[in-house]
């Protein structure tokens, strides 16, 4: 469904070229859930922004259902069926949770009460639907609303950037069930995460290191390796 071919993104830094993404290639099949993990600064968020069209590629190609979307605008990719939950959700003065959910849902063919999406992420809809998306919401609340908004798109492909960040342990299991439910309904997901429980729902895992894909494979193969890398990193004091 999604195919990346030698995707690179480079910037100029102090007169030198620096790759933020270097020759990233992989494919995601329909119904698959892929977890991307790796060190801070390895390029994971940049990769998601490139898929969504927020950052242009320097070279390489991106195909969505065999359509070349490399040059497409963000809105067109959204309409085509890609949804994206930001790592740091955006605040809006004056806009309400309901405004965001209704906007998100506009092109969703499986029309559902917007409140249901809030319940999915463990928020009591009645308390939140009319809240303003401003500083009055905590980071964790905003993050859950961001995830609900993404589900409300009913998109073919969901991108989640560190969905666990800011979510308390208490709600964590709810989040996992929401992802599992989406998987059961045939959803395709790419999730950036460092969390073992979230990695547990992966079909495949992509490990990024220094702008490149360093490992990719079935979760059962990669997960033990990731764990041992992290243990080493901990011993070295990197984490």
């Amino acid at each position: 469904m999604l195919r990346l071919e030698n995707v690179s993104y480079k910037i100029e830094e102090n007169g030198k070229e620096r790759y933020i993404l270097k020759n990233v290639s992989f494919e995601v099949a329909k119904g698959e859930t892929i977890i991307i993990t790796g060190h801070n600064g390895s390029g994971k968020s940049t990769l998601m922004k490139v898929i969504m069209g927020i950052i242009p590629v320097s070279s390489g190609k991106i195909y969505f259902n065999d359509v070349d979307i490399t040059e497409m605008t963000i809105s067109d990719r959204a309409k085509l069926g890609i949804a994206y939950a930001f790592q740091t959700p955006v605040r809006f003065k004056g806009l309400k949770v309901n405004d965001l959910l209704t906007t998100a849902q506009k092109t969703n063919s499986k029309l559902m009460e917007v409140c249901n999406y809030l319940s999915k992420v463990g928020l009591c809809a009645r308390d939140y639907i009319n809240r303003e998306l401003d500083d009055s919401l905590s980071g964790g609340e905003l993050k859950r609303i961001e995830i609900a908004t993404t589900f409300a798109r009913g998109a073919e492909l969901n991108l989640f950037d560190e969905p666990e960040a800011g979510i308390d342990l208490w709600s964590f299991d709810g989040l996992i069930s929401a992802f599992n439910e989406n998987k059961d309904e045939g959803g395709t997901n790419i999730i950036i995460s460092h969390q073992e429980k979230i990695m547990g729902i992966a079909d495949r895992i992509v490990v990024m290191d220094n702008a490149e894909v360093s490992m990719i494979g079935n979760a059962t193969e990669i997960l033990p390796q990731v764990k041992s890398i992290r243990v080493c990193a901990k011993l070295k004091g990197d984490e």
Partner: protein
Amino acid sequence: MGTIEKDLLLAVSDLHQIPSGAFSIRENGKGVQVNSTENIQIIPKGEGNGIDIYIKENTKNESVHIPVIISKSGIEELVYNDFYIGKNSDVLIVAGCGIHNTGDSKSSHDGIHRFHLEEGAKVRYVEKHIGVGSGAEKVMNPVTEIEMGERSELTMETTQLGGVSYSERETFATLEKQAKLVIKEKILTSENQVAKSKFRVELVGKDSSADVVSRSVARDESYQSFFSSVVGRAECFGHVECDAIIMDKAKISATPEILAEDVDSKLVHEAVVGKIAGEQLIKLMTLGLCEKEAEELIIKGFLS
């Protein structure tokens, strides 16, 4: 009343028909209909240039509507409305002015509103200004003078969401002990419109408080200026916030001033002018909106 007039009336006062409570409707420079109730008396001034409104003590849950509409080109008027709001009353006052101008002469409405709130009186004052029609200038210069007695409360919500060519708004308030003033102003200007807004609030009584919040959007080549001065003369709390979105080639000037004349006065001001945040646009585009639609939704929310 024709359709244009009815539409204006609806836009400025949300009235689909003649209201049930006290009201006074002014059309094209003349008072056309007045209705008093047992508790609220509206008396037209002798010179025909305004009204006196008397609200009896303890009047609760009643409303006064005083819309002004101008649908003829070339009308220029200066109107005085004086409100005397009795002790412990709790009322809603809806004012507003709609100008429809398709002609080639300027139309203007200068309204001087004076509020006298007695002890414990509580008022919600809603004022909407709109201009429509592609003719000559549509000008509104509202002046609001507020005297707030002990423990009185006034919430003033003013909106001017487009179409007014030029406006100069002045609001003065004096607050006695424990009086509480809340002002929420919303302004949208476009094309080459000019909107100026000036506040002066004097917190005279102990434990009085004022909260002035202005949100505005200036687009195209419009100009807005915001000036506010809050003076604290006792143990009091004052907060002024001017939050503006600037777009295109617009200009915005904000001058919040606070003047503390008592060691126990606490006064805060904030002013922010900036364009729409890029990440807000991006978020809405990821929900399928194009840039223009995203912009409109952000502005609509900001001014809601």
